[in-house]
């Protein structure tokens, strides 16, 4: 059941209406049933995995309350091993077996290992990280374990963010699920606007450019340099709009249910350096990696080289989180390297979220910094999107070969048109620091803007509902 489908629209209208007629306790039971139904529509068999994660973390965290330090550590280990075990088996088993076989084969040892036909359960990377965050925070004493199994089960499986995040934190979501929810008229308006913007991002931009991107990456050696640049650029737009669109819809639907989810994207393509890019891109994952991987590895403490090692390890594992393929590891590695270089250049100072601009020199410096950052970000997408390393190299060599048709206004029409649409949505949000900036307009402009978004949605939609890219992670 995709967010951008008629089935989801019907499902959500029913959930919304029934949910608001129930008491808090009944609301949670209902949300749990709705979430399990939502997930079961993908593949009901994998509901058992969510239930196992839920029960293990619920039991482990409760037992941690009265346990001594050593026992707490043991309990944490049980939780981490269970969650990472499930994730490792379903997501990485064949990858590691295949990679080991390739390495041994290169060393002259030919093993005939069997790979299993394992289906990747949708959203597994998201909910395992979310439930692990809870147990780790209970272990660290930052969160009190909840005795309410239903509420905890909703925390793990809350349907708007179950399959592609944001990866919520217990400090944000659990208290909201534990108290009576209230939805104000403003929540209704902002939730609806978020859903509308999310749908436009997903349906009118991400899905609309998918065909061009697929064509470019399917046969890069047959494409001209400019066509490949367009394909890479449009993939950058596609993945941003696909994922940010999902996050907007997730936040919008949650808001209509009286629950505020964390922000997951904050206009990452306006970042003027790699550090700020990672503060703005997939925020729930990057902060998760910071809090539960980077800091436990040592974080910024220790020698400069130690810090660089921590950054590289975090980014490589962050890349691997996206999927069992070396392309994702390379993508993470590229970002790790540029983060290390940027950290070196910063020399201990903190990169500001927004640059201060006081004159022409500042504008030029920031423009240069933004251009270099985006060049690296978009080049790294090649490894993320290409089906294998060879294809990525083909794309890169195709671009640098300067072959094929020169750019013309007619060829630029598509990338320019979609960029304009993205900017129309993002610039007002960035300037007002408000994702529902549309609601700040005069009511006539609000109405026209909403109608414009609906028209864009209708005119640019492709035939069938297309799954979100991040579902495969």
């Amino acid at each position: 059941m995709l967010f951008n489908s008629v089935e989801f629209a019907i499902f959500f209208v029913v959930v919304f209406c029934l949910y608001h007629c129930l008491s808090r306790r009944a609301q949670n039971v209902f949300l749990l049933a709705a979430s399990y139904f939502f997930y079961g529509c993908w593949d009901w068999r994998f509901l058992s995995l969510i239930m196992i994660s839920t029960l293990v973390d619920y039991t482990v965290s409760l037992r941690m309350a009265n346990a001594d330090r050593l026992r707490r550590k043991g309990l944490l280990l049980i939780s981490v091993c269970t969650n990472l075990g499930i994730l490792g088996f379903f997501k990485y088993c064949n990858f590691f077996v295949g990679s080991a076989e390739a390495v041994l084969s290169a060393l002259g040892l030919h093993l005939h290992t069997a790979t299993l036909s394992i289906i990747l359960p949708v959203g597994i990377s998201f909910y395992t990280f979310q439930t692990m965050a809870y147990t780790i925070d209970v272990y660290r004493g930052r969160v009190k374990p909840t005795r309410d199994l239903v509420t905890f089960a909703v925390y793990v499986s809350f349907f708007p963010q179950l399959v592609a995040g944001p990866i919520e934190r217990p400090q944000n979501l659990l208290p909201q699920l534990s108290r009576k929810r209230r939805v104000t008229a403003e929540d209704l308006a902002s939730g609806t606007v978020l859903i509308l913007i999310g749908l436009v991002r997903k349906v009118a931009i991400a899905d609309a450019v998918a065909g061009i991107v697929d064509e470019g990456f399917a046969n890069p050696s047959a494409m001209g340099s400019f066509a490949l640049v367009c394909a890479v650029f449009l993939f950058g737009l596609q993945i941003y709009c696909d994922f940010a669109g999902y996050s907007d819809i997730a936040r919008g639907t949650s808001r209509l249910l009286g629950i505020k989810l964390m922000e997951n994207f904050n206009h990452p393509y306006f970042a003027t350096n790699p550090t700020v890019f990672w503060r703005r891109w997939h925020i729930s994952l990057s902060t998760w990696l910071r809090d539960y991987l980077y800091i436990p590895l040592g974080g910024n403490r220790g020698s400069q080289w130690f810090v660089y090692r921590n950054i590289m390890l975090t980014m490589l594992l962050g890349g691997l989180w996206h999927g069992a393929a070396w392309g994702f590891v390379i993508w993470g590695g590229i970002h790790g390297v540029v983060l290390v270089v940027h950290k070196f250049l910063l020399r201990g100072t903190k990169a500001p979220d927004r640059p201060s601009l006081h004159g022409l020199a500042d504008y030029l410096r920031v423009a240069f910094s933004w251009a270099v950052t985006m060049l690296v970000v978009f080049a790294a997408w090649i490894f993320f999107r290409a089906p294998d390393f060879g294809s990525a190299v083909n794309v890169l060599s195709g671009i640098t070969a300067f072959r094929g048709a020169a750019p013309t206004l007619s060829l630029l029409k598509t990338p320019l048109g979609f960029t304009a649409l993205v900017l129309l949505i993002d610039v007002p949000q960035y300037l007002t620091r408000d994702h529902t900036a549309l609601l700040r307009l005069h009511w006539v402009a609000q109405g026209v803007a909403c109608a414009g978004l609906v028209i864009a949605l209708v005119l640019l939609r492709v035939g069938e509902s297309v799954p979100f890219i991040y579902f495969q992670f």
Partner: protein
Amino acid sequence: MFRSSIFSFDSLQIKATVPKALLVAVSVLVLLDFAVARREWIWAFVPRSPSGVFDVLEDNVVVPAQDPSIVLFGSSRVRDAVAPRLLEEELGLREGSVLNLAMTAGNPFDSLVFYRRHRDKLSGARLIIIGVEFWDFNAHGISERDRRFANLADRLQLFDRKKTPALLVGWLWRTWDAKAVISRFIDIETRWLLGERDIMQQMREPPIEEDGRVEWRTDEPATATAEEPLTAVADRALSNYSAGYGRRRQVQHLVDLAHEDGVPVLVVLFPMRTEFAEYVRAAYPHAYAHFHQQLRSIKGARIRIYETERDAHLPQECFDDYGHVNKRGSELMTSEVAVLLRDWYPELFSRGIRDTGA
């Protein structure tokens, strides 16, 4: 800020601007719907388009026609297969009395719409020939002309779990259905503004041929043969096949209307290359079986199946691609159809009966 549950209406305070903004948004959408999507000009704006080609046929073939004797409906394969002037000559009919209303991606609904809109004129014909295709009874095959002409009953009749909700949305809100035509209009206008000045002429020139056929297709047959393997062509047509019954009902509806008017109907599968037909039979047995089962269930019409070129006595070199005949193929196929008509309808087309033009 005042907080309240949305179902506690006593305390609910909606900012006065929200309903006003909503009203503006709805007004803009309704205005677009009535001023653009529900107007004929937008659908007919590009004659060389799935929707515009219908108007070209209406304006250039149906409206000027007087007392048609034979009316052909169907896809581009039917259009290519039967040359109207040649068939008139073979059957001794008056010039201009055979109307070939087949078009690219034509389906049974197009036939029904033509007949409904021009019943007065077409009900005077001696015979109606409906060309059908292996993929015609696919419930997923919804065309731009379905979106343009289908009324509520037509949309419900085309029932398909995946397609029906969108078809119902399109019936209520025509902008939804007009997506392709509005986008095409914007695209052409943009290209014109960007300096492609000849685009308007290219796209808006009616693709009508001397003998009244509309020679418009989405790709050139020579290119299709050279670049597309047989499997790709068949897969494109049949890979999303879902056994539906709506198209058969449309054929039946047309047969019934014609029957009321006393016009016999002949349903024909025009020949395709043997390897194509064999591939369809092997790769899509369910679609193949469904097609034949649907054909058999049509009541009140005679059915002739030329499955391969051998059935129609055509040599392979008479084909441009896997299903479209070339000029020579058209001549041979038209003669084959003339023989069939004289055999099956001797009272209408025997050599002694000549059209006097009365």
